[in-house]
């Protein structure tokens, strides 16, 4: 290596603070992450719809999913998104403690969602509706499971963001985790009718 190698700049590169487009870099990145997530769920949901059209008997299988639990979960998840929006509003007002409290509310919503899901699944598995029973159930568990993993990941990241926000640090991340959470909502909005309503 040449003598030029001993010229070192700060650990935080200038690049991270630039914004040619005017959009904050982190927000741009979250949107691109979501764009790549859309095609993942798109592949799953798209292939489910195509196969469902060829297998009318899936409707009978779908009759065994619990619509009321699904509807309740939809309500819980959408409400948790409201808390995420209020957290964003608080973060905009530079009130980190308030933002953290609202994020806590969102995490609680995610928790309720998962608990309800857990009851549903254990009930269904106990009645023989396992992942092996039929390709419908394979899709049901894989699609809801993948969505559930996104809920869990979101809750973990949100806890970190909330802990930071409480100390007034990295308040811009409150918005970013909110954008992600709305996406998780939006995916559920597709899964709910496909697996719980269209019977």
């Amino acid at each position: 290596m040449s003598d030029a190698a001993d010229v070192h700049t700060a650990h935080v590169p200038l690049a991270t603070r630039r914004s040619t487009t005017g959009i904050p870099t982190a927000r741009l990145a979250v949107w691109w992450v979501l764009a790549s997530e859309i095609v993942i769920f798109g592949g799953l949901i798209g292939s489910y719809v195509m196969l469902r059209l060829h297998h009318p008997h899936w409707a009978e299988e779908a009759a065994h999913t619990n619509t009321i639990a699904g509807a309740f979960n939809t309500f819980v998840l959408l409400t948790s998104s409201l808390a995420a929006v209020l957290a964003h509003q608080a973060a905009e007002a530079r009130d980190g403690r308030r933002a953290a409290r609202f994020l806590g509310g969102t995490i609680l919503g995610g928790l309720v969602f998962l608990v309800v899901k857990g009851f549903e699944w254990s009930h269904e598995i106990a009645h023989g509706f396992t992942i092996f029973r039929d390709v419908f159930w394979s899709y049901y568990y894989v699609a809801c499971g993948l969505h559930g993993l996104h809920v869990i990941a979101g809750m973990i990241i949100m806890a970190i963001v909330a802990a930071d926000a409480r100390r007034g640090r990295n308040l811009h991340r409150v918005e970013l985790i909110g954008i992600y959470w709305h996406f998780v909502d939006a995916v559920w909005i597709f899964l709910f009718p496909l697996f719980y309503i269209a019977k």
Partner: protein
Amino acid sequence: MSMPATAHEVTAVHALESVWSRYVFSTDHKVIGLQYLFTGMAMALLGGFMAYVFRMQLAFPDQVVPLYGLVTAREYNALVTNHGSIMIFWVAMPVLIAGFGNFLIPLMIGCDDMVFPRLNRLSYQIFFVSAVIILISLVVPGGGFGGAWTAYPPLSASAQYNHTPWGAPLWLLAVALEFVAFLLGGINFTVTVMNARAPGMTAMRIPIVVWMIVIASLVFMASVGPLVAGAVMLLLDQTVGTRFYDPTAGGDPLLWQHLFWFFGHPEVYVVLLPATGIVAEIITVFARKKLFAYKTILGTSIATGIISFFVWAHHQFVAGIDPRMAHLFTITTLLISIPIAEMLFAFIATLYGGSIELATPMLWALAFIAEFLIGGVTGIFLGANATDIYLHDTYFVVAHFHYTFFPIGIIATFAAVTYWFPKMFGRRMNETLGKLHFWGTIIPFNLIFIPLFLTGAAGQHRRIYSYENFPQLSTPWLNQLAVLATLALIVMFVFQAVFLVNFFWSMRRGEKVGANPWNANTLEWSAPSPPPHGNFAAMPTVYRGPYEYGVPDRELDYWPQHVAS
């Protein structure tokens, strides 16, 4: 040369950086780029060795292969499968997109690093783990996965059929992790180019190779998702016992083919676009001419990216597709040759009337155009459903895609390595050794794959371990062609030693060069060679496009982007 620029923050001197933090856990985009390059080179040797082993089996069936031993049928399948997977996912993608993308993007857009340096390092680490997993998958009980790189179920979905209880899931896990690494990398690249450009670096002043890497990242991002979903289903079929792809249980093996090729064919363009971008950069420097039709090339690469999403079913012409759909996919497949041809014509127009200097990078760039042309033209036979039904899964297909992937993955890589080597290490590679390596690669390459067009057209089906069981496919003429291809492969492999010697010798001992040995215009050549962490002493300002060569009334025949007047 004046260099007006914004003040650059030099806040700390890291004199105490250890070897680990400097070369292994560095967040410097150039170090990460070189990590990808070296990993890719090591994997290329492994992938090439696999090709040597199975070609020897084809040329001299059931004899002991030197350096390997006897090849069983199961091993043959594993070698073919992993040769394909490794060459595409662990050589072409890491070297072309991740390696050169990382090295070039911040330097070419006038920035000190990627916008997410730690994410960048993380994506290399995930990629590295995926490479380790694919290596482990070769030595687990049952051996490496042998269901071809396309992994068609039901063969791939059940150990009952593929006899690789560990190899198949590990192979799939490795591929999935590799996808995650490239998704993270692609997002980083895209956001960097969107947000971290130097003042004056407008969209139409971005070097074409940077544009093409971004378009490739976006195509990858949009195409790989369905396959990720499909891979989750396949992994569950393999391990948990779901029946997504099992027709006896209401599943559908064709679903996998759709999900796989919806990614698999755009993937060709994911690696093609950066390769053509590299070639475009090189021909304009060594022809000393403005790149012909910059905007058209940009438009055609976007068009290529878009059309690439509408061609996948040409892989399924023999899979029982509705003939009306087959016609439709024939049309869209042939359509994609239009933007690609436009691109190549623009390159030829750039060369026309130029003062061409046949340095090693230029030789590789010209070879890319010539060889890729053969790959493109033979693709028409396979894109048209009528001829594909005869040629499907023969060695004609093998020869065709090697005439596309070899220029993309190997020729463009050598062009890029020899061209940007002075920037990477501050030294030039040896020209004589470079030219020896060039001819020692190009001639054997054609001697490997022209024979395979002939054996394919004669009906020799691929993925067959020994043709001795098929008397009509093991005639003396076909056997001689197989021997010719295999010997040419060995010759080509031997000549790669010339490259390795040249590369590692020049790294330490090559002729020292200044910052801009090729008199090129783009911003990376305004940084010191090799550039320090942070790249530029002062942030450059950009005044013009990247291809102002041979401008009338100028004393010099080049006009760098950062020079004010």
